[in-house]
């Protein structure tokens, strides 16, 4: 028997024992059958990566499926004490906005890049909701590489959904606001407030983003989006609520109309209008932050202009599909034909047909026009309605086998139904109050439909209590059979608002192991220990320091004086996988550092009193890690101590 077989044998005995001790519990969550399905033996890999938004943590967390093990937290819109993101001078520019530095924001929808409608593992995008931004994370390094601010927007919720080949990332505004911003009475909402929908172009080579154009839209609340695919490629769909344009007590006043809208936008048409010069340039200042992994440094650029299309000047650019009542999610099935809306207050799930929509547009089956945007006749575009879909249906993902799975927030369940017949075929409770749900690839042309993950808001009574604040949770449900089966639930970091999943093998091929030292172009980087040095210009002291197992060079520095500003520029000279080093100085008020192999990071220290200060490596790196230390001597301002180091 090989080691592996032995392990399997022992595990099966264990499970058999479990089965006996749990008889009568057959098929219920927590049975041995479920345990076996989520068990990933030591040393084995999970089948999928799941990228979950941290919601109010401003991060993405990376979990394995089916194990539910947490692998990594990727900081995006929030400072991160684990690696100094947002604290070090190299990464601080990432959190700059036109409002100044924002240390903590709210992130909602991770979205994997796609090629021909299939997740390709190059990048993942995510939105900052409160101060509208879109970020791009490079999935070879799992590092945030770019953040672009979205001007003329507020509550960047319908974002960052992508088109079939990642041509565009879209961003629609939840709150309408005066555009450009101005001081007006809030009661003048109807005349002064507008929404925008932004199309961010993505460079296919390096992922670089730029806001290609914005569309000015009526002052509703734009909530979520998904792009067309296959036959509907070239279109993108956005839900809106508050078509009443209320501006107070929205829970009542924005629920008056029987139907709100899905806005269907023909972005290929938008490109034509831009070529024809229909766009108008607006002055708007917004930040565009880019991290370069050869200089290991981020820079902030300020953009000044944005191209805006007004639907009034662009017939055929947008149509409204009437959709009952305050629709939230909008999801396009793998074939690209069906557009499914989830309405918080709706009693059915309306499913629009793309081909019927095109026909209705050709036949001009409009019931009215709002600010120049034609409203299509509901009966002309609807493909079907799912009856009894649970209370508060929100979001739908697809398994690629003709079934759709919709989360129902109020009744806390997932409802499985069949595309085409619209009949509900199965339902399973969730614990509790599910928002989004995720099937790996479930919003793409090629779902890898084996699991659905429920992303829940509440865990009351579910785990050991932890004071007034309880964790939130994700639940893994097997969808490989006719009946959904709960396999596992596991706590998450922050709010697992939405998630994306991808087979591990697609991502693993491109993983970067080190930053090549020969390509380190950091302004203060080192390529060899022999270049370690200390330079003093006035009160600025720049220490070019190297780190390797298991020493710093230099490790003794004297001649620093009160009033000096000391920059430790530290390059990790290791060229091997998984050998970071850390750095900390007693009493430093900025941040500790964590430095990856081949990377340079800077810590800024302004010592306030005389003495000798130790510094050391904070990341256990080898048997001699405790020996990895040094001293800085700080002298009085008028001291005659010369600068020296070794």
């Amino acid at each position, binding site marked *: 028997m*090989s*080691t*592996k077989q032995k392990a399997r044998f022992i595990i099966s005995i264990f499970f058999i024992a479990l089965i006996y001790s749990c008889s009568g519990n057959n098929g219920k969550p927590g049975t041995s059958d479920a345990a076996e399905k989520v068990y990933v033996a030591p*040393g*084995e*890999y999970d089948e999928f990566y799941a990228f979950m938004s941290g919601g109010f943590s401003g991060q993405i967390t990376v979990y394995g499926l089916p194990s539910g093990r947490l692998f990594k937290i990727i900081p995006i819109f929030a400072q991160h004490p684990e690696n100094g993101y947002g604290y070090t001078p190299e990464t601080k520019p990432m959190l700059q906005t036109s409002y100044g530095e924002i240390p903590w924001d709210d992130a909602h929808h991770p979205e994997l890049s796609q090629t021909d409608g299939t997740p390709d593992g190059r990048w993942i995008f995510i939105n900052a909701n409160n101060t509208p931004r879109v970020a791009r994370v490079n999935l070879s390094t799992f590092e945030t590489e770019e953040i672009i601010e979205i001007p003329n927007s507020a509550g960047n919720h319908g974002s960052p959904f992508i088109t079939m080949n990642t041509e565009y990332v879209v961003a629609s505004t939840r709150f309408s606001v005066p555009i450009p911003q101005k001081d007006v009475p809030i009661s003048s909402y109807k005349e002064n407030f507008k929404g925008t929908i932004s199309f961010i172009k993505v460079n296919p080579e390096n992922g670089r983003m730029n806001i290609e154009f914005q569309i000015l839209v009526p002052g509703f609340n734009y909530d979520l989006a998904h792009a067309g695919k296959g036959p509907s490629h070239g279109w993108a769909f956005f839900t809106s609520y508050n078509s009443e344009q209320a501006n107070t007590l929205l829970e009542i006043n924005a629920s008056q109309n029987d139907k709100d809208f899905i806005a269907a936008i023909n972005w290929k048409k938008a490109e034509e209008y831009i070529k024809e010069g229909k766009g108008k340039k607006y002055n708007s200042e917004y930040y565009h932050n880019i991290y370069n992994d050869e200089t290991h440094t981020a820079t902030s650029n300020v953009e000044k202009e944005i191209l805006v299309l007004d639907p009034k000047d662009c017939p055929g650019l947008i149509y409204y599909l009437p959709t009952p009542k305050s629709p939230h999610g909008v999801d396009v099935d793998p074939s690209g034909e069906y557009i499914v809306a989830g309405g918080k207050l709706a009693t059915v799930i309306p499913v629009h047909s793309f081909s019927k929509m095109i026909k209705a547009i050709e036949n001009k089956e409009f019931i009215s026009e709002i600010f120049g945007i034609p409203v299509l006749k509901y009966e002309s575009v609807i493909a079907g309605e799912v009856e009894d879909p649970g209370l508060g249906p929100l979001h739908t993902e697809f398994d690629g086998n003709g079934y759709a799975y919709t989360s129902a927030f109020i009744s806390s369940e997932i409802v499985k139904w069949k595309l085409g017949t619209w009949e509900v075929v199965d339902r399973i409770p969730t614990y509790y109050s599910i928002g989004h749900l995720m099937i790996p690839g479930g919003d793409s042309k090629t779902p890898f439909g084996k699991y659905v993950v429920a992303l829940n808001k509440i865990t009351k009574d579910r785990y050991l209590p932890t004071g007034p604040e309880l964790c939130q949770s994700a639940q893994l449900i097997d969808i490989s059979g006719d009946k959904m089966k709960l396999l596992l639930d596991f706590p998450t970091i922050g709010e697992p608002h939405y998630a994306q999943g991808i087979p591990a093998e697609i991502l693993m091929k491109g993983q970067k192991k*080190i930053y*090549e*030292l*020969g390509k380190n172009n950091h302004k203060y980087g080192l*390529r*060899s*220990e*022999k270049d370690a040095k200390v330079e003093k210009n006035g009160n600025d002291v720049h220490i070019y320091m*190297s780190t*390797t*197992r*298991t*020493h710093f*060079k230099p490790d003794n520095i004297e001649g620093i004086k009160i009033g000096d500003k000391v920059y430790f520029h530290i390059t990790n*000279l*290791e*060229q*091997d996988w998984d*050998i970071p080093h850390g750095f900390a100085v007693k009493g430093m008020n900025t941040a500790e550092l964590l430095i990856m192999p081949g990377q340079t990071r800077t810590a800024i220290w302004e010592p306030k009193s005389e003495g000798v200060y130790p510094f050391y490596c904070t990341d256990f790196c*080898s*048997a*001699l890690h405790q020996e990895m230390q040094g001293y800085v001597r700080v002298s009085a301002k008028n001291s005659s101590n010369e600068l020296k180091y070794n």
Partner: protein
Amino acid sequence: MKNKIFVIILISTILINCGENKDSNSSTGSNNSAKEKLAQKFGLTLYELENGVGPIKEKITLGEISKSLADDGKKLFEEKCMQCHKMDERYTGPALRGVTERRTPEYIMNMILNPEEMTKRHPEAKKLLGIHANQMTFQNVTQDNARALLEYLRMESSH
């Protein structure tokens, strides 16, 4: 991880196989030089005992020291090795002058290219790991890089 397990399984298989060989050898009473015994004890072939474990699996022929190759090696040494090795003093790792007299060229290249396996399996590398308490790292070098480093070490050892 998978690789590691694979390696462990591989090593154990090798060890077991070697144990069997040893038994059969001693029972037949065939001649065992001390070196062969040592190699068997560590599950190495005689070649591996002399020339290390790694991608260099055959003897290479060295000519006169090439100045330009050694200069390339010097640059690489300064970028990737110098933080741990000096020529004449013990530092993070052992002093390297004269290493080309102590070790075969193939051994040196295998140590550069495959340090982790070397310190796990080779008695000499194991001994040094014990003394220095620091695992030598693979510094992302190619076989050609290792050859250039060898040339630099030859040059340094010659004076």
